[in-house]
């Protein structure tokens, strides 16, 4: 801790140029004050909000030219160029009613998120601050987006399987600020990331820009972290059912020299002991039981410091994080007749991250570089011979190992990543983007079950290096046409070890891919877009080299790849002064080739096998009435089928529905907001959310099978209803929220028929001071 403080003191003592305070106010075009409007200087970290009188102050602004931007819900965002100098006078910004900008009313479409959603490629972007009172996990937020389904039970800490437009598993990647999460936190899940540190979530439905993507094959989620550079304090605590506690605290200090220091800690804990129906061995019948071995605990701490808005750097930030977690296991991918009662894993992770941003030539050229190093150790222990009933009792003995056989090992990951991104504004409305990501992962470990004279496969270091470079053009060809195209090159080198001989082997390969997007705006409110990407997925360590045990190597594996085509139409319309409507309709087509598959023969290895086609559409609709009532709905329908099979004997399966994929689902939410209920700036919100998932097969089914005549092959109909309310006490800087999930206590399941929790609640308090 001494080093950061000394560093801060040293850089605090430095002095850079002349500065002045910038004051002003924001009013509407009807001359009414606009409280809590967001004010920022573009391309800096300088930002604030207006007070209840609509006034703002930005302190210690270095002399120079800036673009000041003001935004507020219900108004068009305004930007204007200003010169900051010694004779600075107050600035007045007038915001126009957003009668032409309907999407502003959507909680999921504001500011940067709105800009993202206007691109030629299909993106859904969500500002986390708009939904944080209602949700506790990122996966819950993603699960409400059209075309997206998150497969997980209600167990906090359990790994999530993300499905975007029918593609799932490893085909979908998760990124944090453009860096692949599997290289930062190899065994952590997206649901475990504390929401308080997250600013925005971009869901890419098929096509990935070069500054985000790696070898994702069918879409990705990019998590943009909150990187405040002003003094602030934030604390939140959520108490939920099943002894669930989510707490986080962050304090940020900034000085007039544009130095900043942020410290944050978070702690998550849950017993995850929700009730569900399961077989009780000793009674030989299904009963309602309480999960008993599913505890999860994670502690996270981070510190970041840096400087912004300097001549030599728009931002320079050094961050360090440390985290540890433990998770008990209760069941495998499916619920079986007995449970898991002792297996668990613990993970430890630390990372350092250095970020540098700078724009040149009056912002024509921008450079962004993020470097990250992380280390992770994971201890996995599964050694018991006890057999546990779902009642929690030990009912007998079996072969050791409850989940995948007797195991007691530690794996160590050392990860290094660097992404460099350059963007250059060739001319107005024409931009070139270049991005290079290099990532290296080293895997070692120790198997504690090996005898002293046995060679331990895990101790052999194995390396995977990927380099993905891409160049992209974005441009507005005319006032109506937006065009984007990109080329990417993938290089990878794998140094692994062979099962039989333990000899080192090397696999090296490269390939190209491309994507493009085209958007046509019929009017200011209606546009259509089409996009395509050839996606690739580089195989993992184990898929190439085996596991040192029963899976043998196959270095002949080729990357899985896919064609992704998206066609969409977007409309936003003001029907009257009181009623606004917006909708997006997208059709999508996916063709996955050479799917990597582990067979079940006497000798196992991963092979490239079948080909699968997905065709579907999704749509959402948002209605806003009198700026108080908002009704949001979305629906997704898709068919995922085999289109070719490697084994000629399986050719008959062409056209068969691929299992474990919801085929028809949607949700609808009605909320009512009232401002100034107790005090002028207070905000009250109440909502009801309903989600429907139609039955879908969780095993391959025959031609005549349907939900009526073969119900066991299907996950049944799911109806979920949530309700909740939140209140923001503006004077106290406090938001309180209370949510009741699955209020009808309906039976809900994941994609493999694992039950989810019945009725449950959470109470959340968020205290936040954005400027002091």
């Amino acid at each position: 801790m001494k080093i950061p403080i000394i560093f801060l003191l040293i850089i605090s003592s430095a002095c850079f140029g002349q500065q002045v305070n910038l004051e002003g106010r924001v009013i509407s075009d009807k001359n009414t004050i606009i409280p809590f409007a967001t004010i920022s200087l573009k391309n800096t970290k300088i930002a604030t909000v207006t007070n209840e009188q609509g006034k703002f102050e930005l302190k210690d602004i270095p002399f120079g030219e800036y673009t000041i931007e003001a935004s507020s819900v219900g108004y068009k965002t305004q930007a204007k160029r200003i010169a900051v100098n010694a004779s600075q006078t107050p600035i007045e910004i007038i915001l126009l009613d957003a009668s032409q900008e309907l999407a502003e009313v959507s909680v999921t479409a504001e500011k940067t998120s709105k800009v993202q959603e206007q691109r030629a490629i299909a993106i859904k972007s969500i500002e986390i601050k708009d939904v944080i009172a209602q949700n506790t996990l990122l996966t819950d937020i993603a699960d409400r987006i059209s075309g997206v389904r998150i497969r997980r039970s209600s167990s906090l800490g359990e790994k999530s399987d993300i499905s975007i437009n029918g593609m799932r598993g490893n085909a979908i990647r998760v990124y944090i600020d453009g860096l692949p999460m599997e290289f930062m936190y190899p065994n952590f899940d997206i649901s475990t990331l504390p929401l308080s540190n997250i600013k925005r979530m971009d869901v890419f439905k098929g096509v990935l820009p070069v500054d985000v993507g790696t070898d994702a094959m069918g879409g990705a989620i990019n998590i943009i972290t909150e990187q405040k550079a002003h003094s602030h304090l934030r604390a939140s605590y959520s108490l939920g059912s099943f002894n669930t506690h989510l707490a986080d605290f962050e304090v940020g200090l900034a000085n007039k020299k544009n130095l900043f220091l942020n410290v944050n800690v978070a702690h998550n804990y849950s017993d995850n002991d929700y009730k569900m129906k399961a077989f009780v061995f000793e009674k030989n019948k299904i009963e309602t039981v309480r999960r008993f071995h599913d505890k999860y605990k994670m502690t996270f701490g981070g510190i970041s410091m840096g400087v912004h808005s300097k001549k030599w750097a728009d931002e320079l930030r050094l961050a360090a994080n440390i985290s540890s977690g433990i998770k008990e296991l209760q069941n495998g991918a499916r619920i079986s007749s007995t449970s898991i009662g002792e297996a668990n894993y613990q993970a430890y992770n630390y990372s350092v991250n250095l970020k540098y941003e700078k724009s040149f030539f009056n912002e024509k050229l921008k450079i962004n570089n993020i470097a990250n190093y992380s280390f992770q150790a994971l201890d996995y222990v599964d050694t018991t011979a006890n057999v546990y009933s779902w009642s929690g009792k030990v009912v007998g003995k079996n072969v050791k190992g409850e989940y995948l056989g007797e195991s007691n090992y530690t794996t160590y990951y050392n990860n290094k990543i660097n992404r460099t991104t350059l963007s250059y504004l060739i001319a107005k409305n024409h931009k070139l983007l270049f991005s290079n990501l290099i990532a290296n992962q080293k895997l070692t470990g120790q198997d504690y079950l090996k005898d002293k004279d046995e060679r331990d496969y895990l101790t052999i270091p194995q390396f995977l290096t990927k380099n993905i470079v891409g160049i992209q053009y974005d441009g507005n060809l005319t006032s109506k046409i937006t065009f984007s195209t990109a080329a990417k090159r993938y290089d990878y080198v794998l140094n692994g070890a062979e099962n039989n001989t333990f000899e080192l082997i090397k696999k090296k390969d490269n390939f190209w891919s491309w994507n493009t997007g085209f958007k046509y705006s019929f009017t200011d409110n209606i546009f259509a877009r089409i996009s395509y990407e050839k996606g690739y997925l580089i195989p993992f360590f184990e898929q190439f080299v085996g596991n040192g045990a029963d899976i043998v190597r196959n270095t002949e594996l080729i990357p899985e790849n896919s064609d992704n085509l998206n066609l969409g139409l977007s409309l936003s319309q003001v029907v009257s002064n009181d009623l606004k409507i917006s909708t997006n309709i997208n059709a999508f087509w996916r063709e996955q080739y050479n799917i990597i598959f582990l067979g079940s023969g006497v000798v196992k290895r991963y092979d490239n096998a079948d080909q699968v086609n997905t065709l579907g559409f999704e749509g959402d609709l948002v209605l806003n009435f009198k700026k108080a009532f908002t009704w949001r709905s979305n629906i997704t329908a898709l068919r995922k089928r085999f289109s070719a099979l490697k084994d000629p004997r399986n050719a008959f399966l062409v056209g068969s529905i691929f299992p474990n994929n919801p085929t028809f689902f949607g949700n609808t939410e009605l909320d009512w907001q009232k401002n100034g209920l107790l005090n002028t700036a207070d905000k009250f919100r109440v909502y009801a959310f309903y989600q429907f998932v139609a039955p879908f097969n969780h095993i391959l089914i025959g031609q005549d099978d349907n939900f009526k005549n073969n119900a066991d092959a299907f996950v049944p109909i799911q109806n979920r209803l949530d309700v909740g309310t939140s209140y923001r006490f503006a004077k106290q800087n406090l938001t309180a929220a209370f949510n009741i999930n699955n209020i009808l206590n309906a039976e809900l399941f994941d994609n493999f028929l694992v039950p989810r929790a019945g009725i449950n609640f959470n109470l959340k308090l968020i205290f936040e001071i954005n400027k002091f």
Partner: protein
Amino acid sequence: MKSKIIFSGFLMAFALIACDKNEPEVVEESLYKESGYLVASINETTAGNSYYAGHLDALTGSTPVDMTTKSTYNFFYSNAKWKNFMFGRSLKGENFLTKIAVDKAGKLIEVASFPTLGVLNSVKIINDNLAIYTDFGNSNFVGMFNPTTMENLGVIDMSKAKKIAENDRNFYINATYRKQDNKLFLYLVTDSDKTSQYYDATDIFVEVVNMNTKQWEKTITYKGANDPTARGGENSVIDENGNIYIFTQGTYGLDGSLGPQAPKYSRPQILKIPANGTDFDANYSFNPVNVLGQTNLLVQLMLGAIYDSNGIAYSCISAQSESPRIFELVGKFAQGIITEAEFFELRSSIFYSPTQRWVKLDLNAKTVTPIADIPLTAGFGYPVAYKYDGKFYMQYNTPSDKTSGFYEYTPSTGKATKVVSITNGGIATDLLKLEK
């Protein structure tokens, strides 16, 4: 009280009238099919295994059967059949011993079940009221149940039975019941996780259980043989007199025991426990693959068996020379220069190529006669055979024409004809005749 007595008298009189013997006898109709055949198949894809099963009123001959028009299940494999019921793991693939029937609509239905600690391994029905079962992981486990009521009847104490402690698994893969002396013979498989998937001993151990007392009696050992039973529906057979013939499969060669120089224990053998005795006949050992002339095979396999009468049995055995490519790969293996891709190719060729053949065995004369009407088959997967009404039904699997199914073999004529041919649905696994 008085009124109750009068009412009781009235009821009794009514009951007597109702039991008038002149009334036609009411025959309760079964809820399940009691005739026809249950056919099942399996196939494997990137989406996992599919298990198809459906009912046939009659065998279809050469008319192809499209299993995809039947129902699918999470799991189906019958460990034993008794009348019109099947016994195996649950249709969800979970650890239950489940009694399964075919409902009137032709779909499989679970009639009753009870949970098992490990994966069900074998079921042996002894009579209407007694059966035994073993499981895969639970060391030396033998359980009893009533196949009619599915009542769990407890376990047989096998604490004194043979157990190789250093191996991770010691379990009974199959059993033979001998009615002549009411004894049960259980065949031990012992396996270590530290080696590949093969039997980790060079002797065979058979446990003898007295079913009068339900007590373990003794362990008998045959030195120089391994893998007592594996694959197929029946792996040991018993003749009319009570002579037990144990079919040892032969090793997969994964331990490097390949070719004619491989130790004898690694090659298939038929061993004998004579009637009226509970010890091995030390002088009886019969390798049908050698008798067939395939002594030079790298890997000899004997997969499954079924007994006919008068010392005649049938088995699916290795029956074709390996290709030059396989010998090339073995040469590399011997020199220690084989790559894993080549090793994978080698093992796949040995196990999953159509190189096995159903043969007629004379267990007394130790002769082997190929059943010529049944083509070479990739028998490693499901080398099952059944005996119904004096005829035999043997599974075949020919990847070249993408078909799998069953041949019907008539012992009196020595002829075999195709009676079930599956085109869509993978590899045939079951052909079960439903009976009252």
